[in-house]
């Protein structure tokens, strides 16, 4: 009957030895993801705003979307981190990882925003124009709130995917969760514990994002489900 005690002691030992490394990994993943996702959303939004009603800009920005959506994140990171210096651009691993992830995310978020803008009936905008409301105000008060409910689910999806994709940053030596776990494995030859913990961490982060997304979605679409 001393099995549970053994397990507790075993995990306590594990955390004493590697807790700091794991915490650093978690922190790095969290802050890189937060920055990259925010920057990606902003980038995607700007790309879509700039390409509206402007054919030339749309064509140019389309190239950006096609490149970053059409090549693996790993290859993009290699190009940025290892290939960067060849173009006079030497970034630290963390910076390269964040920038790479943000550029990759931007391409996807641009598409999400495009779908959002397309979802708004032309008549709603015509009504606003016929009242003389300014384009900026229309964007802020009519388009964004109206498409918010629609773009939240795919955005949350995208954020979850990005969080999991951030594991790839380990390959360019960013000390995020996956990197820290593999390092512990290599140094201590403990395999199962760090991997289980790693999987659990990603799952918890994804679930948290999913839950927050659902709360937000319910708030934003309340006007649709109202009773007469």
């Amino acid at each position: 009957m001393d099995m549970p005690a053994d397990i507790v002691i075993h995990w306590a030992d594990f955390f004493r030895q590697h807790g700091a490394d794991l915490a650093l990994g978690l922190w790095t993943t969290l802050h890189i993801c937060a920055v990259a996702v925010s920057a990606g959303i902003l980038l995607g939004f700007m790309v879509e705003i700039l390409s509206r009603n402007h054919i030339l800009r749309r064509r140019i920005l389309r190239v950006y979307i096609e490149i970053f959506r059409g090549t693996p994140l790993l290859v993009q990171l290699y190009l940025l981190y290892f290939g960067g210096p060849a173009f006079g651009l030497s970034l630290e691993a963390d910076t390269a990882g964040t920038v790479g992830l943000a550029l990759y995310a931007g391409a996807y978020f641009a598409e999400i925003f495009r779908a959002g803008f397309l979802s708004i009936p032309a008549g709603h905008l015509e009504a606003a124009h016929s009242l003389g409301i300014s384009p900026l105000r229309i964007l802020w008060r009519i388009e964004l709130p109206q498409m918010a409910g629609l773009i939240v689910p795919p955005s949350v999806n995208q954020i979850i995917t990005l969080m999991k994709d951030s594991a790839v940053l380990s390959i360019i030596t960013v000390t995020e969760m996956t990197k820290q776990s593999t390092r512990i494995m290599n140094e201590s030859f403990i395999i199962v514990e760090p991997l289980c913990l790693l999987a659990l961490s990603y799952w918890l982060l994804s679930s948290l994002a999913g839950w927050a997304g659902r709360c937000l979605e319910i708030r934003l679409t309340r006007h649709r489900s109202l009773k007469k």
Partner: protein
Amino acid sequence: MAPITVHTPPVLQLRDVHKHFGDVHVLKGINLEIFPSQVVCLIGPSGSGKSTLLRCINFLEEYDCGEVLIFGERIGYSTSYDGRRVPMPKEHIRVMRRDLGMVFQHFNLWPHMTAVENVSEAVRSVKKKNITEALRISRDMLAKVGLADMENRYPAQLSGGQQQRVAIARALAMEPRIMLFDEPTSSLDPELVGDVLDVMQSLAGEGMTMIVVTHEMGFAAGVADLIVFMEDGRILEQGTPDRIFHNAENRRVRAFLQSYGRREKNAGKAHTATNSHNKGVCNEPTDHHSGAAGSRGCPQKRTAHQNHQHARHAGRRYLGL
């Protein structure tokens, strides 16, 4: 019919307006003059360009050539020193649009805003009223269209007729000088049509200049000062309801109205029944009808103002419906 003499300048003038959609010639030289407080009903078969014409007036649609003048000022384009047509700055178009309220077939309320938010949005952002003032104006407007108790409902919680009346209130809150209606009752259940027509009729009674694209011939006959018949991008004939409905010169106009009369007669009974309950949306009689309105050649509407709700029934009887 005695000729109508008008001494005031037109509020709206269209001169030889042409419009293409790609290769399709949709407006083929439209000439039209509309005077203060005039109610103009634009009728004609579907696809004849009525909506396009209305949308050219507030420049939701660009026109290829000709002029649309609003209170004498050309909307959308100006003429450069060498006579070329140059697009007007967007801000200027926005300013000109403030004189024009528009009501659409599909209401186009913003679904994420309540009724009062829909109405107050432009009052706040375009008229730059503070929020208290904007809400007060908006509530007044909702009361005017008979929806005082619905201000906190979202569009999804309102019937089609109520949504359309919110849309009318939203346009009226901007104090436009001309109202454009594009088939305001065409997507409503028949029993809701009457409420919306009542609001429009009381608006006409207050002296609002209105251009109404409609298939409600009873409304056109009872309320309009001028009927304009369009077909295939052209105005085939225009005149008083009396002339268009009973003495149209153009064979095609007569044919269209006859086919319409037959259809309406079949659906007529149920229709008039619903129109007969008055929702109390009519405000106290206002006397805006002196001056230009006096020369409008539609005396029965003015004298019968107190019971102008009944004008439409009169209109129907008059059409033999």
